[in-house]
């Protein structure tokens, strides 16, 4: 991760030595009427500053829960979470969250949606307007500033959601299957746009997906998760140079990563092909 280390130029006030996200022996148990459900067990992982890490697994493996715990939106049952060396307490500062659904506020224009974080953080709106416009332009949405969310297609709406998450320049971006609801072509486009944004901004990204190829294409490292109970069963470093192009998926090395992940899934009984 030499490249990742070099990208931490905007390191600001944090401890550069501590990993950006550090999770130790984390578990999460949901109490329900029919008894407890173990969503996550003994999860230990680290994400270095500037790294792009994916949590890859089938539905129900607790990957979204893990992301919500890091965001401070969900309590943990046991274990430790540290952000930049400081124990997690509530929703951490300097964090952007992108949901699977875009969660745009229907009553706000696109520009006002992107400016929402400034309002919530009591920052002066006028100071961020230029940046909001810049971000929208970066994602090809310059012309839609005054439109309302319902006037945009699904891919454009998700681009707006990403702009919103980037507005106050958080150094940690948590993305919960952000492209899961999009069609395959739009998804490809957004993968490339996300990579471009990440390469120029040096942010740490923790990315949840159930698409093997998306994870390989985007990540420095993939944490493969199994379900029942949710846990990390494999860790892969992806060694392709950047920027990566979509055609990379046709390469034999790419196929080798895919095979290894599929085999992991099969070994843990998650990819049954016998029926």
């Amino acid at each position, binding site marked *: 991760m030499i490249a990742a280390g070099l990208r931490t130029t905007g390191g600001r006030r944090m401890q550069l030595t501590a990993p950006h996200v550090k999770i130790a022996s984390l578990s999460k148990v949901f109490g329900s009427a029919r008894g407890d459900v173990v969503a996550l067990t003994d999860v230990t992982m680290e994400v270095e500053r500037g790294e792009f890490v994916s949590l890859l697994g089938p539905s129900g493996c607790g990957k979204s829960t893990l992301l919500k715990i890091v965001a401070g*939106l969900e309590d943990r049952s046991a274990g430790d979470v540290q952000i930049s060396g400081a124990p997690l307490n509530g*929703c951490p500062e300097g964090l952007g969250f992108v949901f699977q659904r875009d969660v745009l506020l229907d009553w706000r224009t696109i520009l006002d949606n992107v400016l929402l974080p400034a309002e919530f953080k009591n920052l002066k709106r006028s100071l961020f307007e230029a940046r909001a416009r810049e971000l929208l332009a970066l994602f090809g949405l310059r012309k839609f500033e005054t439109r309302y969310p319902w006037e*945009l297609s699904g891919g454009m709406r998700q681009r707006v959601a990403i702009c919103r998450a980037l507005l106050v320049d958080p150094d940690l971006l948590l993305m919960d299957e952000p492209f899961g609801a999009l069609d395959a072509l739009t998804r490809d486009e957004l993968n490339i*746009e996300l990579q471009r944004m990440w390469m120029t901004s040096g942010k740490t990204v923790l990315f949840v997906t159930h698409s093997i190829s998306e994870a390989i294409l985007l990540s420095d490292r993939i944490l493969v998760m199994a379900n029942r109970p949710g846990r990390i069963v494999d860790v892969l470093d992806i060694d392709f140079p950047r920027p990566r192009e979509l055609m990379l998926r046709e390469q034999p090395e790419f196929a080798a990563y895919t095979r290894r992940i599929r085999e992991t899934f099969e070994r843990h009984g998650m990819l049954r092909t016998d029926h």
Partner: protein
Amino acid sequence: MGYFARSVNKPPVTLVFICLLLLWQIGVWVFEPSPLVLPSPIEVGNEFLKNPRIFLFNAAHTLANTLVGFALAVVIGVSLAVAIVYSRFLEATLYTSLVAMNSVPKVALAPLFVIWLGTGDQSKIGMAFLIAIFAIVIDAVLGLRTVDPDMLDLGRSLRGSEFKLLWKIRFPSALPSIFAGMKVAISLALVGTIVGEFVAAQHGLGYVILSAQGVFDTARVFVALVILAIMGTLLFYLIEFAEQKTLPWHVSRRAEQKVAPTQKIPTVATVP
């Protein structure tokens, strides 16, 4: 599609109204009922023109009391709804008793309001308020509760205060529901005012109806009824107009099925 064909499928309100009046007039000509039972529209119109100022004065009274009662119901109702949504205690006590009380015929309380608030405007405003507030509280609670949980998570992840969550997320997302409650409530407020005027009053359309009934002046009763009908309709459309102005996003979303958004924005495909 020509104007005529369109009008048959969805005729304008005024046209429907004129046709009804015409039917009424023809019915009176053909069946010749006693004017005590059913005066013709022309007689009703003449009755109004004989002394329009009296009718308008009384209508203004009824309208003012209705609007004051309604406004109080909106302000207090929405505030109560916010309190109910944030407090489990209030939800268990206030909300459940409000829902229970909603099934009581509130009209029966009108005499009590006269005892409490006198025979003046207060008792009419009180009745309008009482009848209207239930619809507003119930719909506002529903709206505030059914906010998208991801939106709240978004606000929390931005470390927004509880007040910011309420003011910038919960409340706007509840507005369509609140407007639905207001549309029901405005008609109910008018009912409340009239009931209040029936029990004890010196002005208002309810008073006009009651005093005309006392002297079998059926035409006069009908004038008051027609004014009430017009007033009720206008008030309803006033709320609808306000809704369209306040919630263009919601109103347009309802129409979304008719016009696909991508058709309106041809540049979608060219965005990288």
